[in-house]
């Protein structure tokens, strides 16, 4: 209930979501009451997102691990921080991240993008961007003419707008603006364009939503993901799954409950064809490999989700499912100049 109040309906107006962007019935993203969307904040966030000065050694920015052409992932099995330290998990897509009820792979305590931004900025285990309090990052922003202009526009009421809180608000606003709803699948399913996807993709869609495969049970709804939250829809009880990929603590890291070992959230499958390699540890290189993993039932362990029980898949089924997954790629969001590097 608290969350409902916190995320009280706030207008998601402006340039980001127009009638062309969102199909009929598609929910509007939620926006925290204390960080309403503005064009100016989104623009500032975009500059910060692409600025390597946001790292300890000037080598990395948010965009280093979240590349637009890869649906804001990095193509690596696991992410690599500014200092070269590897993250145990892969960089997640930021497309439609505004709808994610919980951020990161498995931390149930991070439910807003403003909170999440602090993890790569200041996290030490592992080091991602490697910023530290008092390291001169804020004064750099204040001494840069472009940022002075951007911050003053984005936070006109603040006497000193150069704060970490405002940095995270701006980055979160930019991330919330990255909405994908224009894939061939969307044009077929919501737009009534029967020819937008192939017959193979249509067969694959039926398989995806079938009782036998039950892919939709974890990757469900308009976002083909686990829990979503939107303007008029609260998140509900958060779900994490052990999908039979072994060797990582997952939710256990935060709850210390052995039953949570190896449990992760189900990420969105939108744009999945461009976000290889797959799984939280990047251990599967291709979509075909992912299908083989689920068809085989994954690695048995006491926490494995009962839904990961294996299924039979003919070569035609396999090909149809992959065609369906490819139909979720929104080329527009991968090339939209509004989300590109402004520098």
């Amino acid at each position, binding site marked *: 209930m608290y969350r409902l109040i916190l995320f009280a309906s706030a207008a998601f107006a402006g340039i980001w979501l127009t009638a062309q962007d969102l199909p009929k*019935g598609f929910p509007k993203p939620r926006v925290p009451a204390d960080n309403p969307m503005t064009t100016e904040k989104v623009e500032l966030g975009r500059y910060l997102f692409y600025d390597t000065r946001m790292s300890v050694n000037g080598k990395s920015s948010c965009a280093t691990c979240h590349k637009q052409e890869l649906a804001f992932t990095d193509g690596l099995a696991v992410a690599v921080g500014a200092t070269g330290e590897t993250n145990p998990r892969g960089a997640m897509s930021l497309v439609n991240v505004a709808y994610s009820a919980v951020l990161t792979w498995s931390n149930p305590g991070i439910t807003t993008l403003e909170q999440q931004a602090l993890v790569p900025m200041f996290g030490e285990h592992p080091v991602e961007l490697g910023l530290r309090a008092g390291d001169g990052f804020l004064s750099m922003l204040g001494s840069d003419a472009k940022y002075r202009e951007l911050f003053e526009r984005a936070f006109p009421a603040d006497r000193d707008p150069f704060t970490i809180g405002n940095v995270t608000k701006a980055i979160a606003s930019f991330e919330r603006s990255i909405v994908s709803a224009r894939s061939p699948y969307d044009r077929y399913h919501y737009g009534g364009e029967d020819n937008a996807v192939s017959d193979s993709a249509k067969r694959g869609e*039926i398989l995806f939503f079938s009782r036998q495969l039950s892919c939709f049970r974890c990757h469900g*709804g*308009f976002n083909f993901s686990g829990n979503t*939250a939107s303007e008029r829809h609260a998140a509900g009880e958060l779900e994490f799954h052990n999908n039979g990929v072994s060797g990582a603590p997952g939710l256990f890291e935060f709850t210390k409950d052995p039953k949570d070992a190896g449990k992760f959230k189900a990420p969105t499958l939108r744009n999945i064809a461009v976000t290889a390699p797959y799984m939280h540890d990047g251990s599967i290189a291709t979509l075909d490999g992912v299908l083989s993993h689920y068809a085989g039932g994954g690695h048995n362990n006491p926490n494995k989700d009962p839904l990961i029980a294996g299924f039979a898949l*003919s070569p035609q*089924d396999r090909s149809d499912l992959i065609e369906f997954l490819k139909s979720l790629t929104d080329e527009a969001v991968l090339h939209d100049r509004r989300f590109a590097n402004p520098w």
Partner: protein
Amino acid sequence: MTFMTYTRPFTGILLLAGLSLWLASAQTTAPTTAAAELTIRGDVPETLVLKTADLTQLPRETAAVTDQDGTQINYEGVPLREILKRAGVPIGKDLRGKSLASYIVAKAHDGYQVVFSLGELGTDFGNESILVADKRDGKPLFGYQGPLRLVCPNDKAGARSVRMLETIEFVRLQK
């Protein structure tokens, strides 16, 4: 004594082709789309088969629902009660006594099935307005949704709103 090990090439090709076809059909998890008709069978006077075109001739209603993920959808179709009534299922004033110990099984094309008791559907009891929908936002249901599906507007979860609905079976526990 020798065993014949030689197989003529053409026969071999035929055998291989047959085997591949059999394997392909055996491994295929689900055929394509669901039938464009609804069959009501079981403990009814006579099995009733309604084509999708037949549904346009029956009383129709709409239901505006918010999906589990917040999507707003307008469904249109025929109230399940109307269909059951036409099949001879006791769902109105005749829903009493032994009839209250009966239920329906809604079955989907892929084998998924859920149960509703007649009591929860009857107007004098649960009075649940469940829809057999054939349109979503004004367009015919297609793909994994249709051609027919149930819509249970008062359910919080969507699992009883059976997609690709093909059969409704009426079961009396006491006859």
